[in-house]
C-alpha cells in the first residue's frame, strides 16, 4: 500500500492539493503552522477576492470545510515539519509537536510573506498612522468597520494607492513583479469608491499589469464606472504635517513635480518569499530560486518538481501567484506526487 502524501501549508494551494489527493482516493497529511487553515486570505483577513468577487471567508472557507470533513485527510495544526528524511516513496516527516508520519512524497505549499513596508521608510509606513497597507484596508472592509483613517477615525476624502511597494525595486533587492497588486488595488479602489462615494481615489503606477480578463473587469471598470484616477508616477516620498499626508513625486505625463495632500496613503504591498524558506530549504533539502522562493526543477518536465526527488512545490511558494493559479499548480503537483508513488510512468518496450 502506498503511503500518504505530506502537504506543508494550509493555504489555497495546500487545500487544493489535499482535496485533489482525496478526489483520487489518496490519503494525505496536511500540516499547518498556524491555528487554522485558509492561509493568507483567511489569516490576513482579505475582503472580496479576485476574480470571483466572493468574500474570502466564504470562498476559502468552503475549501477549508471540504478538507476538514474529508476522511482521507489528516489535518495537523500548530505544527511545522522539523525533519524530513528518507527516499522517494519512503520518507519520514517529524513534526515540531513530536508526531511523526511515514509518507511517500511531499508537496510544499508554503506560500509567501507580505512585504513589510517598514523596509521602504521614505513612504511613511510606521511614521504616519494614516499610511497603511493593502492588507490593512482589506481588513477594514472585511471586518465591516469601514475605511477610516487610523489616526482619528475620520472617513478619508482622498486616498492614494501606491503600487509596487516591495516589488520591482532593486534598492531593496526585490526584482520581481508581485503580479496581483495592480488588480487588487483596482478592486480596492472600487470598493472604497462604493463605500465612500465622496472619496477620490488616485493610483500611482509605473505600469498597470491587470493581465487577462482583469483588464476589463478591474482596470477599465475602475476608470469607467468608478472614476478612479491613475497617475504615472513612482512616488519619491510621503511626508505629513500631523493633519494631512503629502505625496511627493513626478507626474511623468506632464513632466511636473507634484506635492499632493492626501488623507490616507495605501501601500500595495508585494509578495516576498516566505520568511521560513531558508529553514524549509534545509529541512526538505530543496534548492531555492535566486530570489529566495522555492526553486522548481524545470518548467515543463514533471509538474511541481523541486531539486529533490519526491518533494514537489506549488503556489506562491514558487513565486508571486494568484489564488486561481495556486490551486491549479497544486492540483498538478498532486498528480505528479501520486504518479511518483504509483510508478505509473510508462516505460518504452523496444
Amino acid at each position: 500500500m502506498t503511503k500518504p502524501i505530506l502537504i506543508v501549508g494550509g493555504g489555497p494551494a495546500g487545500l487544493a492539493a489535499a482535496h485533489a489527493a482525496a478526489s483520487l482516493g489518496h490519503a494525505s497529511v496536511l500540516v499547518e503552522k498556524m491555528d487554522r487553515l485558509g492561509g493568507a486570505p483567511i489569516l490576513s483577513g482579505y475582503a472580496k477576492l479576485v476574480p470571483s468577487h466572493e468574500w474570502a471567508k466564504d470562498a476559502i472557507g468552503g475549501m477549508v470545510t471540504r478538507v476538514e470533513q474529508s476522511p482521507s485527510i489528516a489535518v495537523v495544526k500548530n505544527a511545522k515539519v522539523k525533519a524530513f528524511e528518507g527516499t522517494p516513496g519512503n520518507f519520514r516527516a517529524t513534526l515540531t509537536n513530536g508526531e511523526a508520519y511515514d509518507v511517500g512524497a511531499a508537496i510544499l505549499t508554503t506560500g509567501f510573506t507580505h512585504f513589510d513596508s517598514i523596509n521602504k521608510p521614505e513612504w511613511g509606513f510606521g511614521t504616519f498612522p494614516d499610511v497603511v497597507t493593502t492588507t490593512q484596508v482589506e481588513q477594514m472592509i472585511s471586518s465591516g468597520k469601514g475605511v477610516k483613517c487610523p489616526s482619528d477615525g475620520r472617513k478619508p476624502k482622498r486616498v492614494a494607492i501606491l503600487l509596487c511597494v516591495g516589488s520591482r525595486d532593486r534598492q531593496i533587492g526585490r526584482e520581481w513583479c508581485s503580479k496581483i497588486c495592480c488588480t487588487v488595488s483596482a478592486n480596492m479602489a472600487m470598493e472604497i469608491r462604493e463605500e465612500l462615494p465622496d472619496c477620490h481615489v488616485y493610483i500611482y503606477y509605473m505600469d498597470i499589469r491587470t493581465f487577462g480578463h482583469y483588464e476589463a473587469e478591474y482596470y477599465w471598470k475602475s476608470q469607467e464606472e468608478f472614476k478612479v484616477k491613475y497617475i504615472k508616477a513612482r512616488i519619491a516620498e510621503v511626508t505629513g504635517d500631523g493633519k494631512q499626508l503629502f505625496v511627493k513625486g513626478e507626474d511623468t505625463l506632464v513632466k511636473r513635480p507634484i506635492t499632493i495632500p492626501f488623507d490616507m496613503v495605501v501601500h500595495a504591498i508585494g509578495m516576498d518569499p516566505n520568511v521560513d524558506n531558508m529553514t524549509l530549504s534545509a529541512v526538505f533539502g530543496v534548492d531555492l530560486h535566486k530570489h529566495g522562493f522555492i526553486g522548481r526543477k524545470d518548467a515543463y518536465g514533471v509538474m511541481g518538481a523541486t531539486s529533490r526527488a519526491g518533494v514537489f512545490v506549488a503556489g506562491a511558494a514558487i513565486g508571486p501567484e494568484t489564488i486561481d493559479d495556486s490551486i491549479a499548480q497544486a492540483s498538478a503537483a498532486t498528480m505528479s506526487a501520486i504518479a511518483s508513488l504509483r510508478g505509473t510512468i510508462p516505460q518504452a518496450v523496444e
Partner: protein
Amino acid sequence: MPIHEKSLIRPENIKTKENLIVEGIDVSGHWSTFIESRAVTDYNEELQEEIGALPGGEFIHRCWQCGSCTNACTVHAIEPRFNPRYWIYLIRMGYESELVRDKDIIWQCVSCNKCTYACPRDVVPEGVMKATAHWLELKGYTEKSPSTIFDEEFSRQIIARGKIEDTEVLHKFLHKTKQPLMQDWLVTIGRNIAMRLPVKWGLKMMWAQVFKPKTKDWAKSRKAIEDYIIEQDAHHRHALKLDAPKSKATAHQPKLHAAE
C-alpha cells in the same frame, strides 16, 4: 512648443528683485534672481466633473493616456502644441491653470474625428475638445469663437421661423464679427448670382428677404426647441456652478424675437 520640448523654466516664473536683503546679507544683483517652483500642489476634482457634464465630455474619465488621439490628430500635425492627450490629462487631474494657458489653441479642433476612430477606449476626444472649448467660453476664459457666432445666428433663425434666410445669416454674421460686407469674394458671388439667376427666382429671393416666411405651424416646434435649449443651458450652468440665467433673454442662446 511640443510637450516633450517644454522648457522647465517659464519666463513668468523668473523673479528678480532690484534690491534684496536675505537674513541681513545684501544679495542684490545676480543672486537676487529666483525661479518659482513648478510643483503641482493640488488636484481640482471639480474640473473633470464640469467638463464631463458638457456635451461631448461624457467619457473623459475613460482615458488611459495612450496618445492615440494626438498621434491621429490633423491639427497636431501642423501645430504641435495642439495635444488632446495632454489636455485630457490636465482636465482629469484638475490642472486648471495649465489648461487655461492653452485656451487660444484648444478651440482650433477641426472635428475631423480621426481621434474618435483611433481611441481604443471610446473616450471620443473630439467631443472632449468641443466640451472643453464650450467650458472655456462659459467660464469666460475665451470670447465666443466666430463659429459659435455663426451657429448662434443660424440657429436663431431656425428657431424663430423653421427655416433660414442665407443672405441674412451671412449679413448678420459679418456684422457681429465686425467684418465688412463688401468683401471681394462675396461681391463676386453676388454679381454672378445676379447675372445668372432666373428673374422669377431673384424676385422670390427678394420677397423672402423682406417678408421672412415661416414654416407652417412652426409655433409648437419652436416652443419645444426653446424649452430644450433653456433646460440644457440651465443644466450646464448648474454643473459649472455658474449663476442661472435670469430669463430667456440672458440664456446662452440669443434673444428669440416673438414678433418674427
